[in-house]
């Protein structure tokens, strides 16, 4: 909402989206460290003499100066400088796909101007890990989804020990609470009977690691194709149970045509 007087905001940000506006301007959606998601107007961004160059492209990590005037719909971005290069993200189609999905997911789930520094840190650490990843960069997609919904208050309530305690090779995940048990009778909290996902112990274990490990360590997890698709289904089941209305799928549809 309107802050009382015009002021200058200096903050770090990740560029989520950049669209052309008018003849030479752009409207850029940022995820800022100080104020969360924020759309800004950048005058002259597309002119050939623009000093912004490549800093306003999606997936850029930058430092920005924004001139904020109360009551204005879009604040004016006046300066940028690069914070991280992240050129590694742009060296493979797989990495680009993961990055596009992360940007789309963040844009959909985060509200305008709601500061959430942990989400900013998660976004930056995930993209930084993606940048340096040599293999298994795809692990970062289920990781990011789980961790973002956890930041929004839906952290699954189980640990690796819970999984180790499973007597069977299979178990079930309670979608609402994120509890794990051998079968539906094991849940302490109730909930609709249909809201569980059955999975192998290996998938539940991977799910638990994704919930606790940091982005760099996630790159060390080996998952074969079967396990990966099981884990991805488990994660998307859990995520859509909690944030269904907001889930975007444009990127998913586009990349379904590609791979």
């Amino acid at each position, binding site marked *: 909402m309107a802050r009382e007087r015009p002021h200058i905001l200096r903050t770090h940000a990740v560029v989520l989206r950049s669209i052309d506006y008018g*003849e030479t301007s752009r409207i850029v959606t940022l995820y800022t460290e100080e104020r969360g998601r924020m759309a800004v107007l950048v005058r002259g961004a597309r002119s050939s003499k623009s*000093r912004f160059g490549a*800093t306003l492209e999606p997936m850029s990590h930058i430092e920005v100066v924004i001139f904020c005037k109360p009551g204005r719909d879009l604040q004016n971005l006046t300066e940028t400088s690069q914070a991280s*290069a992240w*050129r590694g993200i742009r060296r493979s*189609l797989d990495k*680009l796909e993961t990055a596009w*999905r992360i940007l789309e997911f963040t844009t959909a789930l985060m509200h305008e101007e709601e500061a959430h520094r942990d989400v900013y840190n998660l976004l930056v650490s995930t993209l930084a890990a993606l940048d340096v990843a040599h293999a298994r960069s795809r692990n970062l997609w289920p990781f990011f989804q789980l961790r973002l919904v956890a930041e929004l208050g839906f952290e699954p309530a189980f640990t690796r020990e819970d999984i180790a305690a499973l007597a069977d090779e299979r178990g079930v995940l309670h979608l609402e609470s994120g509890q794990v048990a051998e079968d539906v009778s094991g849940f302490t909290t109730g909930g609709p009977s249909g809201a569980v996902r059955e999975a192998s112990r290996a998938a539940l274990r991977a799910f638990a690691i994704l919930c606790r490990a940091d982005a760099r360590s996630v790159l060390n997890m080996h998952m074969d194709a079967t396990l990966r698709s099981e884990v991805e289904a488990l994660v998307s089941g859990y995520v859509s149970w909690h944030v269904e209305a907001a889930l975007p799928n*444009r990127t998913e549809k*586009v990349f379904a045509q590609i791979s």
Partner: protein
Amino acid sequence: MQFTSESVEDLVEQFSKLPSIGRKTARRLASFVLKMPKTEVEELARALVAVKERVRFCTVCFNVTDHEVCPICASSRRNRSVICVVEEPNDVMALERTDGFDGVYHVLGGVISPLDGIGPEDLRIRELVARVSEPDAEWPVSEVILAVNPNVEGDTTAFYVSKLLAPLGVNVSRLARGIPMGGDLEYTDEATLARALEGRVSA
């Protein structure tokens, strides 16, 4: 200022739908049209309708043209072994102005843009692959130059197209990216400068 004529208001409305034309400019254009001789207005109207009626896409390269095959594709002076892939017809015009390219073009009609839901099926990518793989004794395709814009969408498109063309054994290149000619290192943003450094060539 409000025009009292409904047809003038209508014209202002139509003009203001054009890119970069605000209400004020639209009014200025409308009052200019009012002062134009009737024959000139008729010519303008004819040109507007003709562009929609006559212009179509070249069946080979998908550039805009008045014919089934555009003059570039039909020319015997062009090297049909080299195809330059661009996003829009405007890019063909820009490259033609350089006078430095004697190959032919392929217009994709856009670029892969995941956040807008624009994927390969919305573009002429399949047609490009068909064109490159089609056996042509006289002009076998030897090189494909990806002249997409140097941004993330362009990168995504270039990776995807290269992946599709890789098994066909053609040389795939991309336009050099970096500092604009006449530009100044000191005033170039770090992101552009870093890419220029990465894409450096031997002196």
